């Protein structure tokens, strides 16, 4: 009798699980619980430390290569890292090799620079989308302006105050690539390794384990992974944002998955051995 009752658990309509998951993810959005995010991973800490130690005025090239499909994970990372760069008074240049990211870049720079009184052209510059990333990365090594002679607004890039002293990678303090594609691999292989430029990454959680070898060898100086990485970076700069607010939902969803795995395994053991 007990076994038959427990056996019904495995015949449950999976749509009930979808509904339960939706409730678990949605409720913290309406009413945040405030679960803490106490652990800061080593790779996020390294990414933060590397940017934090750059002298003021250094030029940081952000390659923001993500589109709306990966926005929930990568947009908070981009916002947090750009904020950090502005906090440290670093000069910021933005490039992209994903056409769908142009609108998202606009979203970041509509709000963040104003919070730090940063001016377009003086403190930061956004360059237009370019196709064929590898060719562009390779050519930028010899002459940055051979590729980007104008910024997104059509201004002569050479004359912008933010670009003073910048000719190629040698003049840059850091490259930050935030992407849901293999663009970070390109930056490491074609720029970081070849021209000895430090590279930081921000990637979706799925890709995170694959970058372990690059971190171990120092080919990547640090890595921010997924929404959890974004939350960690936000807490390091002391400005909670979308990453931190998502932690409630993620924690509860993971607890639900753990509970389902444990329950189903327990029931299976009971059915089999009792």
């Amino acid at each position, binding site marked *: 009798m007990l076994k038959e009752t427990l056996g019904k658990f495995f015949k449950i309509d999976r749509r009930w699980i979808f509904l339960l998951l939706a409730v678990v993810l949605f409720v913290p959005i309406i009413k945040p619980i405030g679960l803490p995010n106490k652990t800061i991973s080593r790779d996020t800490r390294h990414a933060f430390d590397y940017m934090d130690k750059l002298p003021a005025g250094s030029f940081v090239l952000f390659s923001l290569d993500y589109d709306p499909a990966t926005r*929930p994970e990568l947009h908070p990372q981009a916002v947090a890292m750009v904020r950090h760069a502005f906090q440290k008074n670093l000069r910021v240049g933005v490039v992209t090799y994903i056409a769908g990211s142009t609108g998202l870049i606009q979203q970041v720079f509509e709000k963040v620079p104003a919070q730090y009184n940063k001016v377009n052209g003086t403190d930061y510059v956004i360059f237009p989308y370019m196709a064929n990333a590898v060719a562009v990365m390779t050519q930028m090594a010899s002459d940055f302006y051979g590729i980007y002679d104008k910024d997104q607004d059509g201004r002569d890039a050479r004359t912008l105050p933010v670009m003073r002293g910048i000719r190629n990678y040698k003049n840059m303090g850091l490259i930050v690539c935030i992407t849901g594609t293999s663009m970070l691999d390109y930056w490491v*292989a074609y720029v970081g390794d*070849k021209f000895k430029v430090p590279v930081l990454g921000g990637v979706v*959680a799925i890709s995170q384990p694959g970058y372990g070898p690059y971190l171990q060898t120092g080919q990547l100086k640090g890595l921010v992974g997924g*929404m959890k990485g974004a939350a960690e970076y936000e807490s390091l700069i002391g400005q909670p944002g979308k990453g931190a607010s998502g932690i409630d939902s993620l924690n509860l969803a993971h607890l639900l998955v753990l509970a389902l795995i444990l329950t189903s395994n327990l029931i299976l053991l009971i059915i089999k051995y009792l």
Partner: protein
Amino acid sequence: MSETWMIAGAWVAAGLTICLFSFLYKDNPFFKIAEHLYLGAGMGWWFQVYLYNIWKPKVWEPLMAHDWMVLVPAVLGLSLVTQFVPKISWISRYGFTFLMGYGAGLAVPAGLSTDFINQIGGTIRPLSMMASMTSWAVFNSLLVAFGVICVLFYFFFSVEHKGHFKKVSNIGIYFLMIYFGAAFGNTVMARFSLLYGRFDDLYAFAASKYLYATQFILAGMIIYFAVHGFLNRGKKEAEAAQ
């Protein structure tokens, strides 16, 4: 952007999200509409990207400035299109030859250096610095080196996997399984993050300034499924009776 367009955008975004999520309940015409719209809009989006971000600045504008050199890559690129005409499809070989040579020239040295030599160095180097390392770092380095060797054994197929060779390659499988487990755990977290992102947007679109887009569309969808289920109930009973 005017307020009207913001509201319209919110209704479209919330509507398409809910239409696509409705498939989790069951297949329905709203899901099909959203799916086809996505494909069509995607094609349109890419067409304008190629036209305005590549063809216009990289081909048309240089030509208008009498930069005739741009004709060389443009013609090589166009040669790929001859694939669609069997009689002259041989011309496409020139374009492909260029792409192959250029791609291989770029990728092979970088790949060898970044993913091969540097990784071998990264595995071996810590073993030569053990005297200055903590015991935990020594253990980590040995574990990494041991894991690399075992996994390489697993992927070495020129010797039959039996005896000691099989034992080592079996340990390699465990290392691979640990990696797959970590990757799968991260995949689950990534999918939840994406779902959270959509829910966060749906919550934003539920505000009064968007005229309660989420609530109205969700209610409409529930009513549709209820009515559809009610109307088809008779049919199902008839089918069951037969």
